[in-house]
């Protein structure tokens, strides 16, 4: 796998937006709707795309990726749904607590790392919790195309099943909701077995669910190319470590609660990124020298690249040891 093409300036192009609505969906999830201040249409996007939302939180800039859940055919608005994570790093709490209708914000052009494979004869969506968001856009897109799809949606309980009621009402027979509190589970093996040739399966949810779907599909003889997943990782805190950046000619300290990418940005280094969640490959960075061990957390690098000690994905991965020198 080679690195994605590098651009002159880090990140996708930006769009200024106004928050047009903040709609509580349930106790944990809130929908944020954006429009452009000049009323101009948004750039078109394909279902499965995400945008990176810039948050100015008390002098600190947070950049979090969220899947676009609005209808791709509607260029007048972008919408995201955000689950409040009380134990998280604070991005979702900022959105829930600070952002009000009328606020101006900056988001990026959409980037799609989880597209619908339109060659598919049929599309089976498997959602876990807030993983429903990209499928809302996919369902809108496929309904317009008249394509075959079905959704299997696992939620903790009925009260926390975001959009479950809307979906089942609008698409009876195509949507099944499974409630954890009633010991209901997606019957994955049975679902995989009956599908016609050319079916694609898409999973978005917790890591355990994604791994379960990939593993089970392989066991049931599904080709890898027919199984799609998306999981944005949030950077995890860790022991602070020092990094030497050769090209920038500086040595920086990555703090406990920031990622290597965020530390570079804080120090004024224009490091490339797109998804900030270990999925897209844009931030892939060459390691010049190291003494210590990597904590690779991305979905991008191959096992042999990790073993080589020559690559790191600064958006989610960390390092433990006295010396790390990067070609940045």
């Amino acid at each position, binding site marked *: 796998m080679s690195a994605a093409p590098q651009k002159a300036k880090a990140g996708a192009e930006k769009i200024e937006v106004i928050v047009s609505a903040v709609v509580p969906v349930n106790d944990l999830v809130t929908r944020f709707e954006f429009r452009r201040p000049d009323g101009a249409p948004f750039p078109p996007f394909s279902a499965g795309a995400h945008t990176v939302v810039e948050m100015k939180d008390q002098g600190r800039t947070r950049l979090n990726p969220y899947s676009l859940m609005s209808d791709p055919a509607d260029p007048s608005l972008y919408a995201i749904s955000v689950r409040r994570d009380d134990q998280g790093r604070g991005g979702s709490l900022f959105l829930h607590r600070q952002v009000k209708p009328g606020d101006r914000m900056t988001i990026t052009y959409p980037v799609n790392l989880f597209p619908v494979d339109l*060659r598919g*004869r049929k599309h089976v969506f498997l959602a876990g919790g807030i993983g429903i968001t990209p499928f809302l856009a996919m369902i809108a897109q496929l309904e317009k195309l008249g394509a075959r799809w079905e959704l299997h949606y696992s939620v903790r309980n009925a009260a926390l099943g975001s959009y479950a009621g809307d979906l089942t009402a609008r698409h009876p027979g195509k949507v099944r909701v499974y409630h954890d509190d009633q010991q209901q589970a997606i019957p994955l093996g049975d679902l995989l077995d009956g599908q016609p*040739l*050319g*079916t694609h399966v898409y999973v978005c949810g917790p890591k355990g669910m994604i791994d379960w779907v990939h593993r089970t599909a392989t066991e*049931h*003889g599904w*080709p*890898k190319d*027919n199984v799609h997943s998306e999981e944005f990782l949030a950077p995890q805190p860790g022991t602070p470590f020092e990094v030497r950046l050769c090209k920038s000619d500086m040595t920086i300290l990555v703090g406990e609660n920031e990622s290597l990418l965020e530390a570079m940005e804080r120090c004024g280094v224009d490091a490339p990124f797109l998804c900030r969640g270990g999925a897209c490959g844009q931030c892939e960075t060459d390691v010049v020298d190291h003494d210590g061990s990597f904590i690779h957390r991305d979905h991008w690098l191959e096992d042999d690249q990790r073993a080589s000690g020559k690559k790191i994905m600064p958006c989610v991965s960390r390092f433990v040891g006295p010396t790390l020198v990067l070609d940045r």
Partner: protein
Amino acid sequence: MSRVQFPTSIASRPVYGTLAPRPGKAHLMMADAEGAGALLDLASQDAGLMARAHILYIPRATGEAFAAGLRALNPAQLYIGPSFDAALPRLRRVLSDAHMGLQVYLAGTEGLMGRAAAEVAAAGIPYGAVQTEHRGSLARRMQCVHCKGITEDVTTDPFVCSHCGLNLFVRDHYSRRLAAFQGVCIDAEDPGNVPEPVELYK
């Protein structure tokens, strides 16, 4: 039958592997001539495979040499027929009835594997998920890029198009859709100046 080491070539030229058992709900195997040997080797790796296997076999010049061996594998279904075209309606029917979890194994000549792979891809299984193993003849299925006619079992370079009669140079440029290599007129600018044909592909 000895295995052929294909020289490295352009990206469009297909490459083949070695058949290996994979987990699956059903197993579709298609082979011609010496390709049966690859199926026999495959069966020897997993005794349970044949209980859910459907074999389509075209003996071609090998006649009865492999038929008894394939019967002895006791596959769930075995078809032995005279040509790929004779087997095609059966292949399409099997694919139209199949579900996800079907594993596809192709073995034998490039012409057979290419045509079968195109049918399988049209049915919705990506190329990358189809296993192939080359055995036997290196003869190529060629498309004349000028008249679009297909000439089967080309063994020399250059060769004469069986449809329009042009002298064609055998390229490694391959079409998955047509399951054919491309043949390009070798004497267009100097008609009649044709190199002596060399037997490259037995």
